[in-house]
C-alpha cells in the first residue's frame, strides 16, 4: 500500500462551508433524495425513484455473498453491459429499504461496489436504469452469527 500512497491534499472545504450556511445547494447535479431513503416499503421506494416496472435481464450482474457473517458489512457489486444512468440497491427487510443509489454520467462505467448494512436475512434488489428503462436482479442474503454471540 505504501508505494501506492498518494499525496492526498485536503482543501479548506470552502464548498462545504458555503453549503452549510445556505449559500449554495449541497449538490448541484443530483440532490440527496431524503424522501426515497425515508420510505418504508419497496413499492414506495420504487414510486419515489421512478421505477414503474423492472424485469430481470442478462445485461445486469449482481454479485453478493449468499451468507454474510455479519449484517453490519455486506459487500455488494452491480454491473451492467448497457450504459447505466442510475443504480439503486434495496434491502427488503431493512426499516428503510433504499440503502444507496448511484448516478452516472456518459463517462462512468456501468459498475459500482459498496458495503451495506442488513438488519436480518433478506432479499436484496439491485436496480439499474439503462437507456431510460429499469432492470433488476434479486438475491437472498443470509445474515448469520459468526462468533460466540455473548
Amino acid at each position, binding site marked *: 500500500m505504501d508505494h501506492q500512497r498518494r499525496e492526498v491534499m485536503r482543501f479548506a472545504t470552502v464548498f462545504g462551508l458555503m453549503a452549510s450556511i445556505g449559500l449554495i445547494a449541497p449538490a448541484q447535479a443530483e440532490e440527496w433524495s431524503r424522501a426515497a431513503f425515508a420510505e418504508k416499503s419497496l413499492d414506495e421506494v420504487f414510486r419515489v425513484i421512478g421505477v414503474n416496472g423492472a424485469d430481470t435481464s442478462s445485461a445486469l450482474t449482481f454479485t453478493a455473498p449468499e451468507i454474510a457473517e455479519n449484517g453490519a458489512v455486506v459487500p455488494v457489486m452491480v454491473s451492467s453491459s448497457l450504459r447505466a444512468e442510475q443504480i439503486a440497491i434495496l434491502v427488503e427487510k431493512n426499516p428503510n429499504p433504499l440503502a444507496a443509489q448511484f448516478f452516472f454520467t456518459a463517462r462512468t462505467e456501468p459498475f459500482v461496489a459498496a458495503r451495506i448494512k442488513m438488519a436480518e436475512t433478506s432479499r436484496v434488489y439491485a436496480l439499474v436504469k439503462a437507456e431510460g428503462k429499469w432492470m433488476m436482479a434479486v438475491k437472498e442474503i443470509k445474515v448469520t*452469527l459468526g462468533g460466540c*454471540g*455473548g
Partner: protein
Amino acid sequence: MKLNLKPIHLIQRISPRIVKRMTLNMLFALTLNVIFMLFSMNATSQEPSDAEFNAMLKRSLRAEGIAVMERMEQDATQALCSDPALIHSQAGKQTVDLIQQANLASIKPPSDGIYIGDWRRGEAIAQSGRGGTWADSGKERSGGGCYNCHQIDRKEIAYGTLGPSLWNYGKQRGDSKEVVTYTWNKIYNAKAYQACSSMPRFGHFHLLNQQQIQDLMGLLLDPRSPVNE
C-alpha cells in the same frame, strides 16, 4: 437469578459414604500427582511455580462487575484439566475416574420429575450465548450457547463444530430411561462422563436453571422438535 460464582468443591456435594471412600482414593491420587509434578518440573525446569504463576494472575486481573477474582479459584476438575500432561499420565488416569465419579454424584434429577420441557423455548436457549461475562448484569437468564459448538436444528446454518452434531438426537436414540437420564446428566454436568470435556457444567454451576434444562431436553428429545424431523 445470580450465577454461582464461587467454584464448588465437588467433595462437599456428594454423600458422606462416597466421600469417605473417595477422599482416601483421591488423597492417594493427588499425592502421586504432586510427585509427578515435582518430577516434571525438574525435568523441564521452565514451568513457573504455582506461586509465581498465581502472583502473575493476581497482578494481571481485576474484578469487573459479576466477573469477580474468586472465579480464578479452581476446583478439582479445573485443576486436573489445566494440565494436559497430567491427564494423559498414569496418575492422571486414576484422577480422571475419580473426578468423573464425583461430578456424576453431584447431579440432581429434576425436582418435579419432569425431564422434557418446551422445545420452542429450548431452541431460544440453545441460540443465546449470553451470560456470565463482566458485561452481563447477572440479572438476566443466561443462554446455553449450544449452537456455538453443536449442530442442532439443521435449519440453523451458523453452528460450531467443537461438539458433535445433535441433529436427529432423539430420533436416533429413542426416549428410553437410560437415554433421558444420560442426556439430563450430560447437560447438567458434562464432566460426569468426560472429566475434561469442553462443555460447561450448566446445572452444576447454575448457568441454566431446571426449567431451561428441561426445555433443552425437549429440543433434543421431543419427537415434535424440528431436531427429530
